[in-house]
């Protein structure tokens, strides 16, 4: 049974998340790199992901955008892939696209997101390291209105998971 995600902060600009999955590494890789699969799980309760474009190769770009189901507000992330070594390592820059939040949300410098996958006995361990441009950017990432919005009400999550797994 996978352990819940573990989070640490190895330095004042980094956040590291470790999580294991009961699936082969190739499948976890596919779920992170296929524009058909990413919108199925990556996002936030109450938000759809109508835009998911990914050109997964070094120098290729991606664009993700979410739309709020209730008020239609939008935001997203975009950037360039820096390192692509299937199925073990994926690194990309992540710029924040404030969408309909406009100047109300700081855009700032990109965060570097690095994904490392390893497999043992059919269990894949994922280590995701976010390297922020500054300590303040790291701290702001959890204190912005956006993150508050992400956190509100996960009551429908069980239903959502059941739907996805049906």
């Amino acid at each position: 049974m996978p352990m819940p995600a573990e989070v640490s902060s190895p330095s004042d600009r980094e956040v590291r998340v470790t999580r294991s999955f009961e699936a082969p590494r190739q499948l976890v890789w596919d779920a992170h790199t296929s524009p058909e699969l990413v919108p199925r799980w990556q996002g936030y309760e109450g938000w759809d992901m109508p835009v998911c474009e990914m050109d997964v190769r070094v120098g290729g770009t991606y664009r993700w955008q979410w739309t709020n189901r209730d008020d239609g507000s939008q935001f997203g992330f975009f950037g360039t892939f820096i390192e692509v070594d299937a199925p073990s390592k994926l690194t990309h820059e992540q710029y924040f696209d404030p969408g309909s939040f406009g100047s109300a949300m700081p855009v700032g410098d990109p965060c570097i997101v690095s994904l490392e996958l390893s497999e043992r006995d059919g269990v894949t361990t994922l280590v995701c390291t976010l390297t922020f441009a500054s300590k303040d950017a790291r701290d702001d990432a959890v204190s912005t209105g956006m993150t508050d919005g992400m956190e509100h009400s996960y009551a429908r999550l069980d239903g959502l998971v059941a739907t996805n797994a049906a």
Partner: protein
Amino acid sequence: MNQSDRLDLTFAALADPTRRAILARLATGEASVGELAEPFAMSQPAISRHLKVLERAGLVSVDVDAQRRLRRLEPERLQEAAKWIERYREIFEQNYQRLDALLDELQGKRARSRRKK
């Protein structure tokens, strides 16, 4: 000092095995520097230097009235750091639970009942 600065001090103080062991010892009750130094192959001044870092981060306080200058764990800053970590963890965990379900589906497994709350 704002929260960001406090978190820096807390995480820096925690980034050392001796200081984490000192905190673990203090979690069981107050202790003098001598008592804290005992399990380590370290001089009392070396332990005192570690205690200074922990005190500066607000993780440990000194009972100045007591003759033995007992050290005590101050849990507030640890809780603040834990809460900050927890917010990140929740955001990721919600995504990863959806990913669990997707991976199950791709492997032809049925939804796991353990996800039900």
